[in-house]
């Protein structure tokens, strides 16, 4: 059975078109987002690990090493098994700092662009053979299927034309679906969809091949067992023990695949993976790989049983040919195409990103006038094209010379050289960049000499060593692994221990380390706000890109563009570095941010960033156990206690940054904690800014009743510093300030003083009334006598005037006595129901008796049913005082109206005049005793004070409206008194 190229080509094109369609659907959002967040899709996307090697090479490996082939799967499954130790920490770093590749990770950790460059170059060297292997696998599959039966005994020849077409198709796919800028989820949905589909297809076809092998070739599991018992040499070969070194190094090789191979790393960490998708993957990936590996042995034995002339690598193809099933052969061809295309696309994309970030951008950056996004896109596309072209050329060079196993092994060993660096990133903060570079240089040199050179050249300096190392390929691979990795690790260790580590590296190491004991320091930025950041960044990115990046960071952090808090600026700077790292690689991003947004140099002692430590503790809360969890609970308890204190508390750093602002402080100042925590104390709104800043700067431990004007009200605040702020504990950071609102106390005190003053006036008045009353009575009697004793008109006139003046004195004295009774002795007569209208009538009647006063009209509009709880005599006095005041202020001929209505449980009484009104400045003072605006001799200034005192006693209220709203002039006095339950008195 053989195929024509013209038959295979349409099938291949149809499959790739389907892949394009799925990717397009993913990109367009036709597939719901939740599908991409599902752990199953994540597991399937990791199926990219199973490249063409897992279809062909693995059968050859099983033939050669027996059960040894399982290490290919067990390695990766094992890595996921230990996900909490290895993968989740790396995922945390990659997600937090937007790192997409091993080169990014090592550059970030070791703060060394050289590390990134070396890793990228090595990766390129190691991966090009692997890419060439994918092309070769596809090309040889086509060659096997298209050759005639006459050629069946001949070695398999490649099919270059098909290989070229395959490369072209992949190039188009990678450019269309992988080079675009990723969305907010940090994921190329189209790519993920295509890879997940490809993995599903691969699994289904492999299981179908296994079933065909068992049932088609042997006739069932029983027959397979029978065949095996008849061929004990196959079982013997299966269980032939590999050399210890070889098996261990092979397991290590595959164990590190997830960490080191760019395509697996890319799908595992860079395409929107989250801890919640990775956790189920720790067993999900195992299930996938188990199912994928299950058919390998039946396929191998089927190939042997059918006596296929093809090498064992091509037994999956031989199955279809042997069973004379074109469908099966076509499916095998498609699965090879699928596996090879998936791996090639992702490897190419990952390599292109790495080359861009570590081989292009560190050495050349576009001018700021260029649109940086477009520029990056085109450079990435160019790199993708170059890499695929390189893979094709290498395939042409290597074709026919190397087997798939050899190529695959070489690639794996090359990437293994990054393992020491990755492990040190997580577990060894002491490691430094010199050690890393020295170790990698040693390991890579060995790998190139012993592993890579023999691939491309027949002359190998180490060829003899390789021969000496062992006979089987696995043995040689194992020996190269041990040699290169061992040397790498030893050099890394020794050089790191012998050379110093920079501060920058140390802080990056602390960020990456799992046992992070880092106490982050608080720095202040030289820039003040987001606008200034945009201006600075425009130097490197151009104004449009700088604007876009800063706005994006602000949106992600949910910060206002006007936020000027140092904490907000620090967070914005960190986010910008992370986002730029995703765009241009960590080294370039770090360089740009350090250069354009530097921290203010100098400053005082290193201060800890409490806000950051707290945020981190909040994030890790659920993973704290034992003592750490207890301490965290204690921390929460103390924090809550401080938060709930009924007294205002704010903690300030040594540099004046607000670190804590409790609930009482929020109530006291009206400033939400979100606006103030992280900002400088001097940037608080007035008047708190001056109050707190001055107290913070002053050496005084207490500030009593500082008077401030807040929101139009006078307030009194007392401030205290806690003991540690006073230098008792020199290790303490900053100050803790306690703020008490003394306003109520102050007002009470003032009221008390006022009452005291009133009381003394009352006592004085009573005394004066008593003392003056007697002589005045005497004078009046004498004047009266004088009137009777003389007929002299002048004397009579004088006597009358004396009498008049004594009556005036008596009135004044009577007012004083009344005031003294109201203000001091408070005749505690029980209030009784009083009809307001009648009372007002009486008061009006009494006032009209005074013929000397201004001619005004009184109108009583009180509702007849308004009855209040009061004392008749004193309510009448209230009316007389208010009405006579109103009359004195009114022009002749005007009207004074008294009205009373019921409002709920209170009566609302109004006395309205049409007079000159009371100026606003006097309105608060008119109730003070002896305050009057009348001419001297006309008023005592006690009338309204008396009214106020009486109403206060009855739990009533008084309010002045001047000018009257609807008139625009005059005064209206409002009184509220409790209503009586009795009506119609």
């Amino acid at each position, binding site marked *: 059975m053989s195929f024509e190229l013209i038959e295979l080509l349409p099938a291949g094109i149809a499959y790739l078109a389907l892949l394009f369609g799925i990717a397009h659907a993913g990109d367009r959002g036709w597939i719901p987002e939740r599908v991409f967040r599902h752990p199953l899709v994540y597991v399937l996307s990791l199926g990219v690990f199973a490249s063409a090697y897992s279809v062909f090479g693995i059968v050859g490996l099983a033939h050669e090493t027996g059960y040894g082939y399982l290490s290919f799967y067990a390695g990766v499954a094992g890595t996921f098994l230990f996900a909490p130790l290895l993968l*989740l920490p790396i995922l945390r770093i990659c997600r937090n700092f937007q790192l997409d590749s091993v080169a990014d990770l090592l550059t970030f950790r070791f703060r060394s662009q050289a590390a990134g460059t070396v890793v990228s170059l090595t990766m390129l060297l190691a991966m090009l053979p692997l890419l060439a292997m994918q092309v070769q696998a596809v090309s040889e599959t086509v060659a096997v299927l298209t050759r005639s039966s006459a050629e069946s005994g001949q070695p398999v020849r490649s099919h270059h034309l098909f290989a070229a077409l395959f490369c072209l198709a992949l190039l188009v796919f990678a450019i269309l679906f992988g080079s675009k800028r990723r969305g907010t989820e940090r994921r190329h949905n189209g790519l993920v969809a295509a890879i997940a589909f490809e993995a599903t297809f691969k699994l289904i076809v492999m299981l179908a091949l296994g079933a065909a092998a068992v049932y088609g070739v042997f006739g069932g599991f029983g027959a397979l067992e029978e065949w095996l018992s008849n061929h004990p040499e196959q079982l013997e070969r299966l*269980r032939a023990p590999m050399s210890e070194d070889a098996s261990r190094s092979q397991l290590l090789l595959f164990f590190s695949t997830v960490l080191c191979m760019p395509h697996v790393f890319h799908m595992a960490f860079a395409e929107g993976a989250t801890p919640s998708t990775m956790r189920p993957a720790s067993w999900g990936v195992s299930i996938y790989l188990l199912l994928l590996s299950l058919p390998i042995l039946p396929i191998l034995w089927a190939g042997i049983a059918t006596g296929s002339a093809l090498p064992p690598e091509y037994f999956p193809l031989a199955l279809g040919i042997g069973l004379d099933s074109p469908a099966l052969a076509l499916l095998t061809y498609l699965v090879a195409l699928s596996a090879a295309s998936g791996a090639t696309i992702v490897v190419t994309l990952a390599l292109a990103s790495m080359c861009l970030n570590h081989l292009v951008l560190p050495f050349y950056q576009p001018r700021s006038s260029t649109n940086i996004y477009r520029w990056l896109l085109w450079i990435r596309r160019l790199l993708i094209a170059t890499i695929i072209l390189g893979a094709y050329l290498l395939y042409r060079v290597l074709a026919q010379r190397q087997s798939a196993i050899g190529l695959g092994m070489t690639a794996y060993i090359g990437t293994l050289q990054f393992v020491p660096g990755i492990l040190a990133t997580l577990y060894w903060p002491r490691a430094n960049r010199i050690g890393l570079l020295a170790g990698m240089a040693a390991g890579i040199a060995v790998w190139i000499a012993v592993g890579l050179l023999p691939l491309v050249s027949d002359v190998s300096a180490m060829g003899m060593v390789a021969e000496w190392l062992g006979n089987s390929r696995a043995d040689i691979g194992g020996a190269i692994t041990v040699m290169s990795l061992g040397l790498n690790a030893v050099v890394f260790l020794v050089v790191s221990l012998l050379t110093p580590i920079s501060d920058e590296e140390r802080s990056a190491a602390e960020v990456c380390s799992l046992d992070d004991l880092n106490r982050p320091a608080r720095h202040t930025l030289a820039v003040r706000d987001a606008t200034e950041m945009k201006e600075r960044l425009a130097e490197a990115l151009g104004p449009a890109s700088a604007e876009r990046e800063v706005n994006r960071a602000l949106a992600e952090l949910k910060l206002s563009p006007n936020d000027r808090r140092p904490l907000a600026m620090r967070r914005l700077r960190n986010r910008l570095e992370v986002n730029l790292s995703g765009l241009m690689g960590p080294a370039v991003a770090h360089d740009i941010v350090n250069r354009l947004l530097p921290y203010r140099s100098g400053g005082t002692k290193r201060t800890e960033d409490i806000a950051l430590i707290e945020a981190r503790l909040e994030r890790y809360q659920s993973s704290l156990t034992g003592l750490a969890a207890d301490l965290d609970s204690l921390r929460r308890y103390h924090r809550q206690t401080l938060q709930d204190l009924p007294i205002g508390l704010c903690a300030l750093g040594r540099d004046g940054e607000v670190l804590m602002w409790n609930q009482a402080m929020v109530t006291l100042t009206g400033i939400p904690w979100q606006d103030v925590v992280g900002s400088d104390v001097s940037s608080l709104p007035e008047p708190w800014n001056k109050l707190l800043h001055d107290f913070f700067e002053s050496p005084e431990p207490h500030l009593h009743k500082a008077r401030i004007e807040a929101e139009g009200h006078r307030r009194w605040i007392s401030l205290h510093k806690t003991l540690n702020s006073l230098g008792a504990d020199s290790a303490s950071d900053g100050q803790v300030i306690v703020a008490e609102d003394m306003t109520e106390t102050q007002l009470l005190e003032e009221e008390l003083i006022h009452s005291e003053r009133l009381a003394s006036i009352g006592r004085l008045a009573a005394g004066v009334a008593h003392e003056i009353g007697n002589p005045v009575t005497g004078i009046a009697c004498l004047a009266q006598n004088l009137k009777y004793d003389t007929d002299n008109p002048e004397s009579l006139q004088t006597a009358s005037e004396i009498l008049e003046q004594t009556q005036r004195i008596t009135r004044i004295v009577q007012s004083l006595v009344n005031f003294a009774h109201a203000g001091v002795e408070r005749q505690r007569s029980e209030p009784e129901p009083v009809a307001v209208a009648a009372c007002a009538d009486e008061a009006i009647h009494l006032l009209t008796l005074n013929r000397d006063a201004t001619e005004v009209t009184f109108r009583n509009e009180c509702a007849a049913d308004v009855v209040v709880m009061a004392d008749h005599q004193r309510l009448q006095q209230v009316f007389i005082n208010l009405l006579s005041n109103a009359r004195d202020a009114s022009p002749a001929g005007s009207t004074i109206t008294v009205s009373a209505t019921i409002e709920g449980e209170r009566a609302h009484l109004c006395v309205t005049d049409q007079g000159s009104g009371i100026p606003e400045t006097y309105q608060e003072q008119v109730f003070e005793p002896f305050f009057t605006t009348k001419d001297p001799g006309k008023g005592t200034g006690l009338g309204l004070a008396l009214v106020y005192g009486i109403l206060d006693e009855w739990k009533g209220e008084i309010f002045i409206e001047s000018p009257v709203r609807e008139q625009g002039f005059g005064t209206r006095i409002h009184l509220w008194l409790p209503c009586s339950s009795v009506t119609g008195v």
Partner: protein
Amino acid sequence: MYINPTLLLLLALMFVFAPTIQEWVLSGGTAWYRPYLIWVLMICFIYWSQRGRSDNEF
């Protein structure tokens, strides 16, 4: 750093029983699938150790 105790248990079990498991696998006769049985057991074990863990644990 938080290490899942069940993982440590698994490692300890693998270490202790490695020779026994190896012997069992190699003495399987025509039961070539014995390594897969061990693999299935491990998957069950990991699944069991993972259930009920919250998502934000690193």
